[in-house]
């Protein structure tokens, strides 16, 4: 976490620079203020974990970045480009669909319920977007898919439909599918919450492995505090749509400054 004073990112960010930036983002669902004038940024290559009680706005941040919901006010930048806005004649205007898609290509997401495509076998689940969205050659996409399936340990299931796999296997395919797009940012939305307890460890080990061996930026909503402690560079504690505390995991988990953070950690640990 840093609050960099300069907001002009004319050069493509190199390692360590700001990759995601929320400026005064507010999101309401009806009367319920889910995100309240939120500002934060994430540097390239960092692994950031969002914790907090349910309804505190963590998942909404991921869904905003994935453009599954739109902010009511404020701006979000990814890699220096506005996500929901385009600059026309020096003015910020709501972005067209093509602009949003271009910026969004930098971001991949893994969902709580996996959301694999049931009408495609494992291989096509992984290659479909690289081929049809990025325009990658089919052979190249398939070679890459095999590499990814080896990484997630599922090469023998390449020719199966998602319904023929266990939850843990489906989630690992979903991780491979997200990585196949070579995103700069990977969003993980409670990825082990829907898994049987004995399958959780395998998926978390895989994610630890990815966190350690790649330079991918991760934003992670999780209730697995040990996992959060292992992979995070920073932890953001949310409550009622605001970040009430942030810092390295050692500090947040061991000696939080806020009473609310302590309460939350006591309740779930």
């Amino acid at each position, binding site marked *: 976490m840093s609050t960099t004073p300069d907001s002009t990112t004319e050069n493509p960010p190199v390692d360590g620079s700001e990759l995601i930036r929320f400026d005064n983002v507010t999101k309401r669902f009806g009367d319920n203020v889910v995100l309240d004038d939120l500002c934060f940024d994430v540097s390239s290559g960092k692994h950031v974990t969002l914790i907090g009680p349910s309804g505190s706005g963590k998942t909404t941040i991921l869904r905003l970045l994935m453009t599954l919901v739109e902010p009511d006010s404020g701006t979000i930048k990814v890699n220096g480009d506005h996500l929901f806005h385009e600059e026309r004649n020096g003015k910020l205007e709501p972005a067209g669909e093509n602009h949003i898609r271009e910026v969004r290509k930098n971001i991949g997401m893994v969902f709580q319920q996996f959301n694999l495509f049931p009408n495609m076998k494992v291989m096509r689940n992984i290659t479909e977007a690289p081929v049809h*969205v990025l325009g990658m050659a089919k052979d190249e996409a398939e070679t890459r898919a095999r590499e990814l399936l080896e990484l997630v340990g599922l090469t023998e299931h390449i020719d199966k439909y998602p319904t023929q796999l266990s939850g843990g296997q489906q989630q690992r395919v979903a991780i491979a599918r997200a990585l196949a797009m070579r995103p700069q940012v990977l969003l993980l939305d409670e990825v082990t919450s829907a898994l049987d307890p004995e399958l959780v460890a395998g998926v978390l080990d895989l994610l630890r492995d990815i966190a350690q061996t790649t330079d991918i930026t991760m934003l992670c909503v999780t209730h697995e505090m040990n996992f959060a402690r292992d992979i995070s560079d920073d932890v953001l504690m949310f409550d009622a749509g605001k970040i009430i505390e942030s810092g390295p995991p050692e500090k947040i988990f061991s000696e939080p400054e806020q009473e609310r953070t302590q309460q939350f950690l006591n309740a779930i640990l």
Partner: protein
Amino acid sequence: MMTWDFFTEWFLPGIWITIQVLVYSALLSALVAFVVGTLRTSRFWIVRFLAGTYFEIFRGMSALIFMFWMAFAVPLMLGWQFVPLWSGTLALGLTYGAYGSEIVRGALAAVPAAQREAGIALSFTRWQRLRRIELPQAWPEMIPPFNNLLIELLKGTSLVSVIAVADMTFAGNLLRLAKNESAPIYTLLLVLYFILAFILTRLMRMLERRAKAGVGRAPEKKNGLLSRKLSPSGESMQASTQGAGGLG
């Protein structure tokens, strides 16, 4: 009594005409159903409104009267007329297509929102999501109601006999006038429509099994056959995977 000659001379061509009207109007219905049904899920209200208007108008119109209108009113208005077979086909296709659009819309709406979100997360365009994710998943759900509609359409094809298209109902009526034997003729017609409907149902069942296998839902029958077919390619795929892994 009805003679074999009369059957081959009138009924057989009549059956052939019925099948033609059925196939053409089913194809037109399917086209209308997919286009209108998909447009009814559009994000633009004007598109939804126009497609919804089409649906309401054609659902609420009598196919028979519409057929009369095509056959007898259009020539008066335009000074030009369709071949009767095409009047009947158009009237049936446009009307039953409206019903079909409701099936398509409903099946698309039943695809979980999570699938749309997964498609967005991979940056597919709206059209790509529809074509590659939503329609393929909605398709198996459409087949049983489409089967119902197709059988309704088959029975609806008998309406074309009133605009002088020589389908099998027309042949039956002709024979009745000539021979004045209602009972055997109409019994034969009932049986013929039933046989055609039964064949359609079997075909649609086959289609449904294949469609469900295509979204990874095991077909109830022919499991052995399918697994025999799949396992060799599965093994070869594994082998080639290991090869690629070794290289990488």
